[in-house]
């Protein structure tokens, strides 16, 4: 791996069309500015990895016989399981729904 030291305001070129500059450094966080042609897609590595891993999990889990959504919904709703409040990311804070259940 090529390793280069850069200061704030300095940049590197990848080929002649992609420029990555160091915009700011605060503590352990570096802000990068990226100039690239539109056909070059730039993602945070975690996003890419998360999708790869989710694909692998989906392929490994896929059961031969699929569940019936309506059946599962009927089973779920009478038990009064509270879905998380709208606006929270999936799997987000459980404390919101927990407090609303404790009153009943």
């Amino acid at each position, binding site marked *: 791996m090529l390793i280069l030291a850069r200061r704030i305001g300095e940049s590197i070129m990848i080929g002649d069309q992609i420029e990555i500059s160091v915009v700011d450094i605060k503590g352990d966080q570096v802000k990068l500015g990226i100039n690239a042609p539109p056909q070059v897609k730039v993602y945070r590595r975690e996003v890419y990895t998360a*999708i790869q*891993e989710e*694909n692998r999990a989906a392929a490994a*889990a896929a059961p031969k016989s699929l569940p019936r959504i309506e059946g599962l919904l009927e*089973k*779920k709703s009478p038990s009064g399981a509270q879905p998380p409040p709208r606006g929270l990311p*999936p799997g987000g804070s459980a404390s919101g729904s927990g407090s609303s259940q404790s009153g009943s």
Partner: protein
Amino acid sequence: MTMKIRTKPYGELEIEERQRLIFPRGIFGFEELREFALLDSAQPPFYWLQSLQRMEIAFVLIDPLFFRADYTPDVDPAELREIEIKGPEDMLVFAIVTIPEDSSRMTANLQGPLLINRRTSVGRQSISTNPRWGVRHTILEELALARRGA
């Protein structure tokens, strides 16, 4: 024209040529898999994306609009151009579903939608640029919310 294929969920199956899809770059984590068949499942609203190269690899798909009426893939227009999608009428959108042992916890990946050009049968997995969409949306919870009109 039909062709005979081997599938994970249903064994040997005859499919129509138009069910055959090409993903020139594979899908993330399975870059070597380029040929698939899109199968209706016995259990709507699910579909199967069956690899034609590795019989044991098949993905469960769902139309995201089934449980998120507000879903739009929000991908970089360059990705649409890459598979020659010119308008919404050209495009099929699916999300890959992960079904754990407790199937009521099944999730759909809305951050990495599969986009398919229905005219050319060429598809790709894209990455949504909209931070609202994650890789694990719990289908039943979001469907229950939608039905309660919340």
